[in-house]
C-alpha cells in the first residue's frame, strides 16, 4: 500500500470518529442549548470538512505527491497525529 493510500485511509477513520463525535454533540445540543455545544459542533464540522478536502487532495493531486516521498511521509505523519488527537477526544466523549 502506498503512503498516500495509507494517509487517505487514516483520513477515512478520522471522518468516522468525527461523525460519531458530531452526532453526540448535535444530539446533546437538542437537550442542552448551550454555546459550548454549538462550538463543539462547529469544531467537529470543520474538522470533518478538512478531512474530506484532504482525501480530495490525495486523489486529485496524486502526481504532485508522488514526486516526493518526503512529502508523502510528512502527509502521513500529520494525518496520523490528527487521528491520535481525535481518538483521545472520542474516548473521553464516549465514556
Amino acid at each position, binding site marked *: 500500500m502506498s503512503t498516500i493510500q495509507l494517509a487517505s485511509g487514516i483520513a477515512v477513520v478520522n471522518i468516522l470518529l468525527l461523525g460519531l463525535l458530531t452526532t453526540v454533540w448535535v444530539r*446533546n445540543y437538542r437537550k442542552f442549548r448551550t454555546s459550548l*455545544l454549538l462550538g463543539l459542533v462547529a469544531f467537529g464540522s470543520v474538522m470533518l470538512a478538512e478531512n474530506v478536502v484532504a482525501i480530495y487532495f490525495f486523489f486529485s493531486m496524486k502526481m504532485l505527491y508522488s514526486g516526493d516521498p518526503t512529502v508523502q511521509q510528512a502527509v502521513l505523519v500529520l494525518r496520523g497525529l490528527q487521528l491520535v488527537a481525535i481518538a483521545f477526544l472520542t474516548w473521553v*466523549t464516549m465514556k
Partner: protein
Amino acid sequence: MDKALWYLLTATRGGENRARLIRELSERPRNANQLADALDVRYKTVRHHLDMLEDHGVVEPGDNEYGKLYFLTDQFEQHREAFEEIMEHIE
C-alpha cells in the same frame, strides 16, 4: 472544575443521565439501585456514571458497604451555581 463539569454533563454521550443523576442526589442521598429506578436506566449504567462522577469528585459513597448511599461532595456544592445554569439549558 466548572469547565470539566460542563463537558462531563453536556458534551459527552452519557452527559444527560449524569446530570439527571446529580439532580436526584440533590433531593436526598440514594443508592445505585434507587437511582436506576428513578432514572429508568440499567443498574450497570448507573454504576458507570457513579464511578465517573466519583472520579471527578462530584459524588462520594457513604460508609456502609451494603446498599451504599451516594452523596454530593462539598467540592461539587461549591460549583452548584454552574450546575444550576446547566440545568436551565435543558430543553
